């Protein structure tokens, strides 16, 4: 799937661009302004997405030269962490669920770091710092799990894990481009 998207994302945007251009023409022919406004909103989203991949919507109907893609994994990490934090609020008040969410979030953050490390995104100093943080997070999660098993609620451990995750994401944001 990933390979397919990688090979065909320009073509995908071309199809989207062509559909958008056709829709644009249709709504301009209709008398109501509501559909124009609705398509304008869709257009903003599509243009933002296309720009993130170094394309323009016009590439759906023309053969313009590709620009260098400006998006970096860092931007996506920011979006991802914001989204995860918003999801987390739904499961607060339930210690077991909160621990499970922290574990899942930690796994994703570490897995992404592994892939970034494979691409040599970090200097040695940053790698060492990340290692200390990752092991801290692992220890906190293990202690939190033991507390839950013992029937104790230890919010301070949750805070410690969240703090580690925040620091990991912050390092990804600031050092990932090295």
């Amino acid at each position: 799937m990933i390979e397919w998207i990688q090979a065909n994302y320009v073509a995908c945007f071309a199809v989207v661009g062509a559909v958008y251009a056709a829709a644009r023409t249709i709504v301009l022919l209709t008398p109501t302004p509501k559909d124009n406004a609705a398509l304008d909103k869709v257009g903003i989203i599509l243009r933002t997405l296309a720009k993130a991949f170094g394309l323009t919507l016009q590439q759906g109907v023309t053969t313009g030269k590709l620009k260098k893609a400006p998006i970096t994994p860092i931007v996506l990490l920011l979006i991802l962490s914001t989204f995860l934090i918003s999801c987390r609020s739904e499961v607060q008040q339930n210690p077991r669920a909160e621990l499970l969410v922290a574990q899942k979030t930690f796994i994703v953050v570490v897995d992404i770091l592994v892939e970034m490390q494979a691409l040599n995104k970090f200097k040695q100093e940053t790698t060492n710092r990340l290692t200390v943080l990752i092991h801290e997070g692992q220890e906190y999660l293990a202690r939190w799990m033991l507390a839950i098993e013992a029937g104790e609620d230890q919010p301070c451990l949750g805070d410690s894990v969240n703090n580690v995750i925040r620091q990991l994401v912050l390092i990804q944001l600031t050092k990932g481009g090295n």
Partner: protein
Amino acid sequence: MDPASMSLLLDMIVKGVGVAKEIQRLARRIQVGEVISLEEIRAEQTKVNSSVAAWDNIAGIEAAVKEDAKEVADPNGENN
């Protein structure tokens, strides 16, 4: 964007969406009164350990660095 970065970006999207869906499902389970089992938590902790091991492997981490981290997280050695 080079193919490796593109692949990383797409993988991040897949992982991000995947975990967000998992958390949404979890929220729904809680809303209907389901209790999260300890087995599920233990299984997830095993995955945490695997991810950390993958990091150690790719980062070529020495034991001393790991011990430093344990010392910070568990200064009294209560978890040993």
